[in-house]
């Protein structure tokens, strides 16, 4: 074995001469590289693939079979186009992989974008303008659920086509637990007073002061999502749509009805101890151990995709499903719509085949059927024939009712990520720190409005620059 250490000079000189001519290192590298190129050039080259489109999706592995199915269906009906779909995580605020790819100029042809992200991403220049492709197509905005369509445009430009529509949320209750607590299982709470009274009857606290059965955890949906849900149910709104004076909309975090909703949650937190409620519902590992599925929590707000989980983890549960309770002067039926849309990153030309894929995914009979049946999601395409069946379904029909009646989305402002984070913190200040809801939400309004002004200034600067360039 030859040692890698240098040999003494005289020993090195005693080595036998190599049979090939002596070459410098650079010479050897040049010959090596040339041989490599020669061999590479002789190998059969793959033919050009002009119609391959890359798509980035954010879903977990359980939806992979459905995604494979939808891609196979598309490729079958569009023989000239191949789809390469891969995963890119998206925490509903940002997508690190996508943003870094856009910055590096290597983004996909098509990407999923969550409705609430759209204005922010469009304002940041992350997405391509689809207005022209949309206008040339036979699509009409009336074909989609209106809140979802609003979430796909920014300042009258189309930046995405809505794919899914999540009716948030349905109210689900465990009838057996109602019976055990002496409540009528067929009469769910209609008002917030009903809900308080029933939660009180259903909650069981043991001798040591720990919760062993919980009525409901009103803030179980991550901070801000709960605030949107109850804020709207109480009849409030967290934003005002753009007008002449406020072209990007107005932050109304401390709307009196939203404050009222947070006051109610704070009262609930004081009564049952926010720390104990959270340790009961949120410090849980594994979906099967979710207190509602495990029969330890009697009521909860449920997303449409969780019905599948409910059937899997609590197959024998006798449950009821209805609308979220609201104060008598609040909004009933209530709810807000979220969902994913399909867009094109800004550094990609909007290729006709990419737009065809988007259009097919969002509106075709095949794609919306797979979306509803295999992915357990509702299409954003209101004309989809799946709604004929879904509207008559005893469980999913409730979600359909919420979808058909909902007027709201979270907000349509290009500061949504920051807004969500600030609302979450304000809720912590109130629930944990005992801060007055009006003061906490007032601070959110001030902070987020400032950020909104900064975005407006940035946009104005960009526009000036573009006009000068023109």
């Amino acid at each position, binding site marked *: 074995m030859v040692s890698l250490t240098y040999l003494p000079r005289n020993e090195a000189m005693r080595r036998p001469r190599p049979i090939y001519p002596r070459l410098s290192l650079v010479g050897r590298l040049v010959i090596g590289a040339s041989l490599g190129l020669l061999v590479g050039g002789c190998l059969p080259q793959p033919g050009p693939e002009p119609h391959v489109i890359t798509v980035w999706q954010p879903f977990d592995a359980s939806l992979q079979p459905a995604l494979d199915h939808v891609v196979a269906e598309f490729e079958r009906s569009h023989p000239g186009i191949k789809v390469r779909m891969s995963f890119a995580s998206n925490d509903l605020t940002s997508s690190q992989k996508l943003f870094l790819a856009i910055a590096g100029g290597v983004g996909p042809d098509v990407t999923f974008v969550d409705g609430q992200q759209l204005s922010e991403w469009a304002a940041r220049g992350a997405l391509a303008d689809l207005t022209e492709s949309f206008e040339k197509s036979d699509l009409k905005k009336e074909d989609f659920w209106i809140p979802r369509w609003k979430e796909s445009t920014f300042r009258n430009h189309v930046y995405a086509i809505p794919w899914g529509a999540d009716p948030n949320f349905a109210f689900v209750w465990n009838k057996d637990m109602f019976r055990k607590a002496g409540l009528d299982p067929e009469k769910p709470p209609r008002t917030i007073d009903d809900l308080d009274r029933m939660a009180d009857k259903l909650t069981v606290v043991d001798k040591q002061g720990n919760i062993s059965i919980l009525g409901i955890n009103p803030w179980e949906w991550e901070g801000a999502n709960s605030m949107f849900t109850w804020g709207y149910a109480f009849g409030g709104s967290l934003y005002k749509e753009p007008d002449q004076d406020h072209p990007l909309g107005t932050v109304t975090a401390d709307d009196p009805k939203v404050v009222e909703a947070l006051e109610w949650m704070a009262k609930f937190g004081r009564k049952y101890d926010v720390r104990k409620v959270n340790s009961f519902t949120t410090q849980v*590992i594994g979906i099967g151990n979710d207190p509602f599925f495990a029969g330890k929590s009697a009521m909860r707000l449920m997303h449409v995709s969780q019905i599948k989980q409910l059937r899997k983890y609590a197959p024998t549960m006798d449950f009821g499903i209805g609308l979220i309770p609201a104060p008598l002067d609040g909004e009933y039926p209530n709810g807000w719509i979220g969902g994913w849309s399909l867009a094109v990153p800004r550094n990609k030309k909007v290729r006709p085949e990419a737009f065809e894929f988007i259009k097919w995914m969002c509106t075709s009979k095949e794609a919306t059927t797979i979306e509803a049946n295999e992915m357990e999601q509702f299409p954003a395409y209101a004309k989809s024939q799946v709604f004929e069946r879904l509207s008559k379904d005893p469980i999913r029909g409730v979600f359909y009712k919420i979808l058909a009646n909902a007027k709201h989305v979270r907000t349509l402002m290009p500061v949504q990520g920051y807004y969500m984070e600030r609302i979450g*913190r304000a809720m912590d200040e109130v629930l944990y720190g005992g801060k007055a809801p009006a003061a906490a939400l007032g601070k959110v309004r001030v902070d987020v409005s400032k950020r909104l002004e900064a975005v407006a200034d940035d946009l104005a600067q960009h526009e000036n620059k573009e006009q000068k360039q023109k």
Partner: protein
Amino acid sequence: MKSRTFTGIAFCSPLIFGLVAFTILPVLASLWFSLCNYPILDPPRFVGAANYVELARDDRFWHSVRNTFTYVLLSVPLGMIVGLGLALLLNQKVSGIKVFRTLFFLPTVVPLVANSVLWVRLLNPQQGLVNTFFRAMHMPEAWVPGWLSDEHWALPGLVLMSLWGAGGGAVLYVAALQDVPKELFEAAELDGAGPSQRFRHVTIPMISPVLLFTGVMGLIGGFQEFARAFVMTKGGPWDSTLFYCLHLFNSAFTEFRLGYASAMAWVLFAIILAATAIVMRSSSKHVQYEQ
């Protein structure tokens, strides 16, 4: 000779290229970005010291600094004490000691995310093993910690979890303990020193270089604490586990304020440099190196 130098450099070139392209240049670039507004999708725009000024005024930044210092001050000394205690036990001449050494070292090789998921379960205030133990010890219910659901107990919970990895330090301490010459113990014993005096005046000084090493490494790692909080608490409840690096990560990759995050990274570098320098300088009085 010249061609040998050239050949040497040529062989090192992949490493040199990697070091320059993936370490030195990004580090220098981050210094430049810290003076810019850089929202990643647009080119960086020079704003002078604005990011550093904003840092000084950012309540959450100071909150994350306080959390991180508290974590370091609790976890580093405790980790060293527990590690040393384990090492003293593992240094005994009893049968099967190798099995115990392996067992105590095991948590160090378990991936941090798996560890974190396990600890969310262990620290569950109602069904978790830790509180079950406290209740079995008849601890009054009002004293039983709420761990990750309670803003006062979440940080101590993460400190407790960090002690799980004390076996890594213990292995180093065992090696150091076995290096202490037996003659020194014999001489001390002849002079009438008891076990605690022998520990204080022989063992500790003789293993002090290893203590210094683990202390400095613990300090650097402690200031960079990120993964546990990211997986287990996301900084909550009520920002009680918002560590410096978690705040930095959120600024960079959630808000995409890369300039601001770069400024935070350089401030962290200065903090770690200063803390390490203080420890190294003060160590000359306490650490003894064998001649």
